[in-house]
C-alpha cells in the first residue's frame, strides 16, 4: 500500500507576535481542504518546550482543533518536518491510518533574537559542543573557510543568497520577499568570520500542513511519496572536514541515481540554513564548480529556501514538501515542474542527520 500527498496549506513565515502555536495551527488547517477529515494527526515541532513551556504539543493542538483522533508529535531537530512525513507515510502504508494530517508548527520570535539563537543552537550536542562555546554559525563559518581554501570564492556563497531572495520575491508565503545585491554583503553583520547575516537563514514563525493518504484523491491533485530515507552522520568535529556533508551527499546521490534524475530538470528543495552547506552539497554532486553558476538549476529552491522563504525550524520540512507538491501539481512562483519527480532535502545542524524525500506525480 502506498502513501500519497493529497492536499496542504501554508501560513506566511513571519514574526507572528499576535499568534501562538494553536492560532497558527488553526489558521493553516482552516485554509486546507481535507486537513481535518483525517483519522490521525502528526505534529512536527522542534522547540515548544523551550519557546512556549509546552510539553505534548500535539495533544493540545488536537484539542484546540476539536479533534479526537490519535495524535503524536515528532521532533528531530531541523529535520522534524521530513521525519513527520516519513512517519505519516508509514502509518498509512501499515494501515494504522487512512488519512493523516501532518502539521508543522513553530514559534520562535517571542523572545529576543539572542534567546532564539540559543534555542536553535541546541540542535548541536549540548554537553560536547554548546557548553564549549560552539554554535551553528561557527561551524558554518569553519565550513566556509574550508571551501574557500578549495578555491570557492566569497561571491559564490553570496550568489546563493542573491538567488534565494530573487526566488522568494514571487512566493506569497515567504518571509523575505525582496531582492538583495552582492553589495549587501559588504555591510552585513558578521556572525562568525567570514560568515555574515546574509549567509544565514531567516528565523520566523510558521505553520504548514499536508495530508498523507493511503490512496490518491480522485477529485484533487495527488503525488506519491516514492522514497524516504535518512542517515546519521558523524559529529562535525570528528569528520575529515566540517564541510564534508556525507549523509546529505550520499542520500541525494542515491536518489538521483536510483531514479535517473538530473537536478537541472527536477524541482528540489535543499536545506540551506547557511550558504556554505548547499554549495558544499551541490559541489559534491558535481553540479557546481568554483564559478558557482546556478543558472542551469531552474527548479532549485523555487521557494527561496530557508534563506529567504524562512526557517520555522520544526515546520520547515512541511513547507518544503508542500512547495514541491505545488510545483508538481500546480504552480509555485509561476513555475511548474517539467519532471514527474521532485526532491526534498533536510538536515539538522551541520548534517548531523540528513533526510531525503522523493515525490512523484
Amino acid at each position, binding site marked *: 500500500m502506498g502513501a500519497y500527498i493529497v492536499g496542504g496549506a501554508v501560513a506566511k513565515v513571519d514574526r507572528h507576535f499576535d499568534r501562538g502555536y494553536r492560532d497558527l495551527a488553526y489558521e493553516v488547517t482552516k485554509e486546507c481542504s481535507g486537513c481535518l477529515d483525517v483519522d490521525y494527526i502528526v505534529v512536527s515541532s522542534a522547540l515548544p518546550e523551550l519557546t512556549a513551556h509546552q510539553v505534548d504539543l500535539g495533544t493540545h493542538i488536537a484539542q484546540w482543533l476539536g479533534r479526537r483522533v490519535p495524535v503524536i508529535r515528532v521532533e528531530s531537530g531541523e529535520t522534524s518536518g521530513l521525519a513527520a512525513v516519513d512517519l505519516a507515510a508509514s502509518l498509512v502504508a501499515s494501515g494504522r491510518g487512512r488519512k493523516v494530517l501532518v502539521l508543522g508548527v513553530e514559534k520562535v520570535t517571542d523572545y529576543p533574537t*539572542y534567546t532564539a539563537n*540559543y534555542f536553535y543552537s541546541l540542535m548541536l550536542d549540548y554537553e560536547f559542543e554548546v557548553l*564549549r*562555546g560552539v554554535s551553528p554559525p*561557527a561551524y558554518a563559518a*569553519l565550513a566556509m*573557510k574550508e571551501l574557500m581554501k578549495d578555491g570557492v570564492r566569497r561571491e559564490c556563497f553570496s550568489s546563493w543568497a542573491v538567488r534565494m531572495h530573487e526566488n522568494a520575491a514571487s512566493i506569497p508565503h515567504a518571509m523575505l520577499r525582496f531582492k538583495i545585491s552582492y553589495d549587501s554583503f559588504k555591510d552585513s553583520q558578521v556572525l*562568525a568570520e567570514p560568515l555574515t547575516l546574509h549567509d544565514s537563514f531567516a528565523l520566523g514563525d510558521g505553520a504548514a500542513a499536508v495530508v498523507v493518504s493511503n490512496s490518491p484523491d480522485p477529485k484533487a491533485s495527488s503525488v506519491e511519496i516514492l522514497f524516504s530515507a535518512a542517515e546519521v552522520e558523524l559529529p562535525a*568535529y570528528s569528520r575529515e572536514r566540517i564541510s564534508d556533508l556525507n549523509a546529505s551527499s550520499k542520500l541525494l546521490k542515491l536518489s538521483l541515481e536510483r531514479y535517473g534524475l538530473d537536478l537541472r530538470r527536477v524541482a528540489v528543495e535543499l536545506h540551506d540554513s547557511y550558504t556554505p552547506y548547499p554549495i558544499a552539497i551541490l559541489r559534491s554532486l558535481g553540479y557546481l564548480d568554483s564559478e558557482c553558476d546556478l543558472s542551469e538549476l531552474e527548479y532549485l529552491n523555487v521557494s527561496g529556501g530557508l534563506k529567504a522563504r524562512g526557517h520555522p525550524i520544526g515546520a520547515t520540512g512541511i513547507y518544503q514538501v508542500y512547495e514541491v507538491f505545488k510545483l508538481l501539481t500546480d504552480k509555485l512562483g509561476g513555475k511548474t515542474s517539467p519532471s514527474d519527480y521532485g526532491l526534498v532535502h533536510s538536515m539538522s545542524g551541520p548534517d548531523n542527520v540528513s533526510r531525503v524525500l522523493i515525490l512523484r506525480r
Partner: protein
Amino acid sequence: MKLSPAQIWRIRESQYRLVITVCESCGKKSAFKRSVCPFCGSGNVKHMESEGLGKVLEVTKVLYRWASSDERPPSLVAVVELDEGVKVVGEIVGVGTDEEVKEGTRVEAVLRRYASDDPYGVIYYGIKFKPLKTA
C-alpha cells in the same frame, strides 16, 4: 536553577581531563570518553587521557549573539587536533594583543568557566585552549 551539578559531574572526565576513546576494533580515536566508537559502532573501546597539547586546524571569530553579551562576548572557536590525533572543538582564550591564532598555532588545554547559573549558583567549568608560549 538552570544548570545541574550532576550533569557536569557525570561528564567530568571529558570536560575536565580531556579523556579520549580508542577503539580496539577499528583502531580509530575519538574525542571524549565514550562507551561506543562513533566510527564503527564497536563497544570494544579503551580510554586514555590526552596530554592537552595540539594545533589549530581552523579558527573563526564568533560574533553571533546567542546569549547576553555579558555571558558570551565575542570569542574564537577552533577545531583543534590534539597530538594524540583526535579532533575537538572549543574556544581559544588568553590570546595576547600581539598574538594571532591561525591554522597551525600550537595550543594547550586549560580549565576555564563555561557557564554559571547566577551570582550564587552553579558554575560549569571545562576545557578551553590557549596559545602555547614557545619562548
